[in-house]
């Protein structure tokens, strides 16, 4: 086996998942300064939308039964819908609140979603077999890589490019970028606040659904807690990337993916269970050196 290409693909595919989750968080932060802790639960929600609601240990496919060509757009819409609904019922009423109050309410919302899932599906992790053929290994440059890893990497690239095109080339994209930089000014120029915010939440939710699809195919498990860890990493990626910077979020997502794979590969065996502790320590260290993130947008400093 060839270890270096193997590590590379591991890092890229893990980083891709982190990058997509981080993008979802950075989009919302950009337009409304909301640190959305509920994002991880959007992911979990999408995972569970695949299976029939029940507390049984064996998962019966629900939406998951549909062929991929239907399933993917359906799940992306579900993700978008959940995110838009959360904006409509919660965050819309907090437009004049402080960022701290919004952050705490998103934390509460995440808890509500998680416990609703718990209530409906029970806390036992369920085996879910979605597209198992994708986990078959293929051989590339001497390394044996699961097909899925390559799909993840390609998907991430497609998503990032599509999002970049959307933001660069479309009217709504232009309005989102303007609103992300200066919301009031954008509104003074006729940009509709509700349209932009709803659009950002829809995109963010769709990204969460994409992450959910990848995670469930990769792990074969539906677990109520699966959103929590990835959300934490994604957050850290958005902060390191410079809050609100989309390219920064993507870059930092890949960076953390790489750091985590490298730590896993090179830490001594007895230290490996502590990998995440090392990772987060590294993150705090990065923040201390660069409090505005590695790729902070120029306008992020408060003016005095």
């Amino acid at each position, binding site marked *: 086996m060839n270890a270096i290409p193997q590590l590379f693909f591991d890092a890229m595919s893990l980083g891709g998942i982190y990058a997509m989750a981080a993008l979802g968080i950075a989009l919302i932060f950009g337009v409304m300064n909301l*640190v959305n802790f509920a994002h991880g639960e959007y992911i979990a929600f999408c995972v569970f939308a695949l299976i029939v609601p029940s507390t049984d240990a064996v998962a019966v496919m629900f939406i998951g039964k549909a062929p991929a060509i239907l399933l993917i757009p359906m799940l992306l819409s579900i993700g978008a819908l959940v995110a838009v609904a959360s904006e409509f019922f*919660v965050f819309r*009423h*907090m437009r004049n*609140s*402080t*960022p*701290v*109050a919004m*952050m*705490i*309410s998103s*934390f*509460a*919302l995440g*808890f*509500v979603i*998680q*416990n*609703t899932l*718990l*209530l409906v599906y029970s806390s036992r992790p369920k085996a879910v077999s979605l597209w198992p053929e994708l986990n078959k290994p293929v051989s590339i440059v001497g390394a044996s890589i699961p097909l899925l890893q390559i799909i993840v990497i390609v998907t991430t690239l497609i998503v990032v490019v599509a999002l970049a095109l959307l933001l660069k080339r479309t009217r709504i994209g232009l309005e989102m970028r303007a609103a992300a930089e200066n919301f009031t000014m954008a509104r003074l120029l006729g940009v509709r606040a509700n349209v932009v915010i709803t659009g950002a939440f829809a995109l963010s939710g769709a990204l969460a659904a994409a992450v959910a699809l990848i995670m469930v195919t990769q792990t074969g498990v539906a677990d109520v807690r699966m959103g*929590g860890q990835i959300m*934490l990493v994604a*957050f*850290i990626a958005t*902060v390191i990337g410079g*809050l609100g910077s989309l390219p920064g979020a993507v870059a930092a997502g890949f960076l953390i993916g790489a750091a985590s794979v490298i730590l896993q590969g090179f830490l001594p065996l007895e230290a490996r*269970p*502590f*990998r*995440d*502790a090392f990772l*987060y*320590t590294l*993150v*705090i260290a990065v*923040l*201390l050196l660069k*409090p*505005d993130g590695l790729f902070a947008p120029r306008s992020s400093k*408060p003016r*005095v």
Partner: protein
Amino acid sequence: MAQTHKQKRLSAWSTPILLIAILIVFTFLVTLFGDKSLARMAAQTLIRVTFVVGLWIFVGNSGVVSFGHAAYMAIGAYCSAWLTLRPQMKGLFLPDLWPFLANAEWHVFPAAVVSGLLAAIVALISGAAILRLTGIAASIATFAFLAIVYTIYSSWEGVTGATSSVVGLTRYADQWVTLAWASATVLAAACYANSSSGLALRATREDEVAADASGINMYRHRLIALVVSAFFTGVAGALFGHSLGVLNPNSFYLGVTFITLAMLVVGGIGSLTGAVTGVLVLSIIIEALVRAERGVAFGETTFALPTGAQEIIIGIIMILVLILRPAGLTGGRELRLRLGKR
């Protein structure tokens, strides 16, 4: 009409005294009229008061939301277990403890104090780094800190028992012991809030930039508040372990972070009274919901909430309070006696 300076100071001190009186009345009522399970609930509530008031010392005065205080709680809880568990037990379940800890068989009170001190020392070290950050980045860093401590405590097999629970802790933390600690915490919180450091820190809460310009060393005062705050959350952790008799790292992660923040927010982050009110109000609601989950008889039929409804309802209450009454139930005001002529 106007109060003299002296009266104002006395009036400020009436807050902790009134709050402690409320806690004492609460404990007496529950002990007199309640059953054993209600007494246990009272002890749990008073531990939460200790924790949330401890958390308030930092969050309420600095305005920085900390997601990391459950970590100080874990540190305190495990420290007290290391110091008080019988050496034979430790040899069996926690074989990698250092000899000094493995042979320790301390009395529970000094153990609780040392547990708080250990949490305070960790706060001093972690805070020295994290508090260099401000705003959202600081809050995210406290989250990362929580994840670090959680990862360590749930993986360090020979020292913390990892994910298998540590059992056999003396269950000494009844409602009276916890009442004493909760009262001490309220008193300490009032002392800190009225100290020069507390006043300076609250000035920075309103406007970081302006306070910085007026020469307040925000970093130093935040660090002081964090250390004091961590001491009491550490003690709350020790009490928690000695109230249930069992320790598991999962008790000190997102669940407790959520519920304690909910208490602080519902009561009102801006005041000490808010912290205590939030704990009492939500604890009573939680108790009612727990009973409702077990089933309440309405004549012939039994009505039972599904398990897990508790967290959902608390979450919804929290969001509603944030939307409708962002400053919490107390609106940031303190309960106090008005001394002097009106």
